């Protein structure tokens, strides 16, 4: 028998990613803590290591208001830093 597909209409559109810098030398690293347990510890340590090992210029830090809530200031973050580390899920 024929049956109809229940998945609705997917509307995928490929969005471009920001160009990556060739190196992190002199670049400002952003950290957006997603508020999951220990996400900040992991991301802060990575940012610290990037500054130590790659001569990145420094770190700016933000935190989402909660793990289940979107960050309201993504435009500000994008305009401030060169690259960003964030967490997804746990």
């Amino acid at each position, binding site marked *: 028998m*024929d049956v109809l597909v229940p998945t609705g209409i*997917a509307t995928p559109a490929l969005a471009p990613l920001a160009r990556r810098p060739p190196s992190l030398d002199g670049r400002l690293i952003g950290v957006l803590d997603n508020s999951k347990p220990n996400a900040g510890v992991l991301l802060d340590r990575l940012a610290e290591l990037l500054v130590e090992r790659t001569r990145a210029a420094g770190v700016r830090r933000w935190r989402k208001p909660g793990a289940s809530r979107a960050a309201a200031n993504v435009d500000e973050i994008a305009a401030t830093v060169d690259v960003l580390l964030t967490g997804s899920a746990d």
Partner: protein
Amino acid sequence: MLATDAFADLARSAAAALGRPHLPVVTVAHPLGGVEPAAVRARADGALEAVVAALTRDPEPPAPPEAESAGRLEAPDDLDRFQEWVMAQGWGDGLPVLPPTPARVARLLGARRPDVVVARLAPRRALATVEAVAVNAALAGAGPEHLPVILAAVRAVADPRFNLEAVQTTTHPCAPLVIVNGPVRRALGLHGGANALGGGARANAVVGRALRLVLQNVGGAVPGRVDRATLGHPGKFTYCLGEHEEASPWPPLHVERGFAPAASTVTVCAAEAPHNVNDHGSTSAPALLRALAGTAATPGNNNVYLGGEPLLLLGPEHAHTIAASGWSKTDLKRAFWEAARVPLAAFSAENLARFAVIDPARFRDRVFGDRVPLAAAPEDVMVVVAGGAGKHSAVVPTFGATRAVTVPIEA
């Protein structure tokens, strides 16, 4: 983006839903919660090389995705083989479904235009057309008379206040509880009396189940991969009841929320399983409040961490005991909000430290003193009367980072 290995699929599907399947995801060993900070930092050390590569090398863009639109497929005629086929397609919930044949879906649709978009559903961001909702309703065993309630529930969960992205993907066991008010309950036999949440009424069963299948099949909440509930709860199969308005001493939920008594509405709230409150002894509101508040005020529920709207499902006899003390619903909400508090001493030091960062007002500055309420304000407590004879009620913790949404049911 960083994720633990157990959640890498969810991270990648979140990026893909935003049109960026090529966003680099670096994984570390799961879990991070409940782990000493030194061990977490060691995982950062191990991930450094991959992070540097992700930040300094442009990933290859993937081939443009093909637009998928609902079509039709050839399925086995044999109903037992059909069940296996549906599960292999990823469309089922494990219970038997009915085939969404073009004839059955057409019967559900009636004169409705099939291509009207009801909602865009997170996290997959796919469009739930009227036809797509009807196909899932057909799978769930619904009839044409149930479709208006199901369509209203789909519109309600897509309201931004509901926070569907988080509700669909969280490890917390929340499911949309569909509360129906107004004359439509009687027209459909949508039950709010004895055993209202326990089965026996077709309308309750198919409305809740159809919504679940829409959320899975259109919204993309594939169990275990995108729907990351650690345990979930049985209400994820179906979770729907009518308010027992006729047995309530107070105005019903939809009237409280600004609708006319003769309106029919759907309210969705992202709810845990109900926890029973047995009290056969109390004869007054203050006495009964002790059992209600004592059952609700527990240190592991999401409302104590995140606020939101805890729900009281009051059995009619308990509701009348409370009303007989002269309490309005507003009085009950305030008294419950003041009584249902968790002492800070009930939390571990680690949890207190974590929530002092997330909610400093309650957990660090102690604006409510040494006992934390379940909601920011008394009016956030939801009260619904349901059930039949007996001295039982239920407390229903909710997800917290969500608000209940009420919409009218359109013909």
